[in-house]
């Protein structure tokens, strides 16, 4: 009951409620930076940490593209092996590690499809079939849309509550901020500022993860 009370208690003011989130974000960002540096220096434990942090993103994107568990697992394996072997090519100062990983993921997935298309084209009985395969497999524009959606879904899940709940109600249930405040028993001002900050955070994450295309 005390937890509920804190959210709706105006006495503590807006700043008292938002501070813990901001601290958490800073800690998380510091941790990401530190992880990136350890990776660049070739620490083996950093490889595991990077895998823990970003393998679900890579795997899910590959899964959405290939629609096949085993192929997605193969691509995930290739991406992280390529990342480790190619870590000298990663400059921590030039961009975010997830963007770099997703760039590798995009290339490995494209390679996978070109190999598959070559095999299937050779096996196809007609030119039309071969064309259809190619159209299906190498639509990289829609693949990039998939990357954006998975990245956004990942960031949404990392917003923490009540922000995640607020944004889900706004996005998927089309509730207004007034309805959301009422449903979650939160002050209107809190909901409004959470919406703004969460949208900004999703935007930042999407930009940071955007792969050079």
């Amino acid at each position: 009951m005390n937890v509920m009370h804190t959210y709706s208690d105006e006495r503590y003011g807006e700043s008292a409620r938002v501070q813990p989130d901001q601290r958490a974000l800073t800690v998380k960002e510091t941790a990401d930076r530190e992880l990136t540096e350890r990776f660049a220096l070739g620490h083996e434990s950093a490889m595991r940490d990077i895998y823990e942090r970003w393998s679900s993103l890579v795997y899910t994107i590959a899964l959405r593209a290939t629609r096949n568990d085993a192929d997605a697992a193969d691509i995930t394996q290739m991406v992280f092996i390529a990342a480790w072997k190619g870590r000298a090519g990663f400059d921590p100062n030039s961009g975010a590690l997830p963007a770099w990983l997703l760039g590798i993921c995009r290339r490995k997935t494209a390679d996978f499809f070109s190999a598959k298309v070559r095999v299937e084209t050779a096996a196809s009985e007609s030119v039309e079939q071969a064309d259809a395969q190619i159209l299906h497999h190498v639509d990289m524009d829609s693949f990039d849309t998939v990357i954006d959606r998975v990245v956004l879904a990942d960031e949404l899940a990392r917003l923490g509550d009540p922000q995640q709940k607020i944004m889900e109600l706004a996005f998927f249930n089309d509730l207004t901020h007034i309805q959301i405040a009422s449903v979650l028993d939160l002050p209107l001002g809190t909901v409004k500022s959470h919406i703004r900050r969460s949208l900004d955070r999703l935007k930042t994450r999407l930009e940071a993860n955007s792969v050079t295309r």
Partner: protein
Amino acid sequence: MSHVDPDSIALIALGESALPEDLDHVRNCVACQGEVDELTAIANAARSISPADRPVSPPAQVWDRIEAELGLDVPVTEVAVEPKSRGAHRGMFALAASVGVLVGGLGTYIAVSTDSSDSRATIVAQASLDPLRDVTEPAQASVQQINGDQVLSVQASGLPATDGFYEVWLLAPDAVSMISVGMLDASEGGQFPLPAGIDLAAFPIVDISLEHFDGIAAHSADSVLRGKLEI
């Protein structure tokens, strides 16, 4: 004229109604309109998220293979595996498009009898589960109140053997929100204690899905049996 405050810009981007003077300002202000456009693009992208976009962990073997190929020596046990969700699934991730249309003629009936094996167990809801595919026979489900706890019983015996497993869900009428209540033994059926405080009227549909060992916690959208509880 001062700019529209950032929080209101976000609400406009989400499509909420706004003060006429704010909307006027946005229309005539390149900076504010630009912000609205940027945030609208984010909101639209987020709204297009489908259940399958939710990140799921790869199978554990993937790390094993990476570790072996690279000759790394770090403990495998610490690799995170996403737990099977036991909470109410969030609407966005809940169901793929192929589920969602309820089969009619659910053949449900009201029952207020008592379980002869335990005088304190009362059947509070009951459902006939209709096959959604040709693979199985109709089945039965009931919710019993036992010493203040609610337990869902599923009597299903005709489910075919599978490489995966069967999972029992309670769905909201929109078939979007749902709660996973457990894995079902295909040969024997099973009993599943329900979370305390669950509102069966809000989650009245018993659904049994065929799931694969793919680490994806969301509903597979491959339902084999379904029926509505009559409370």
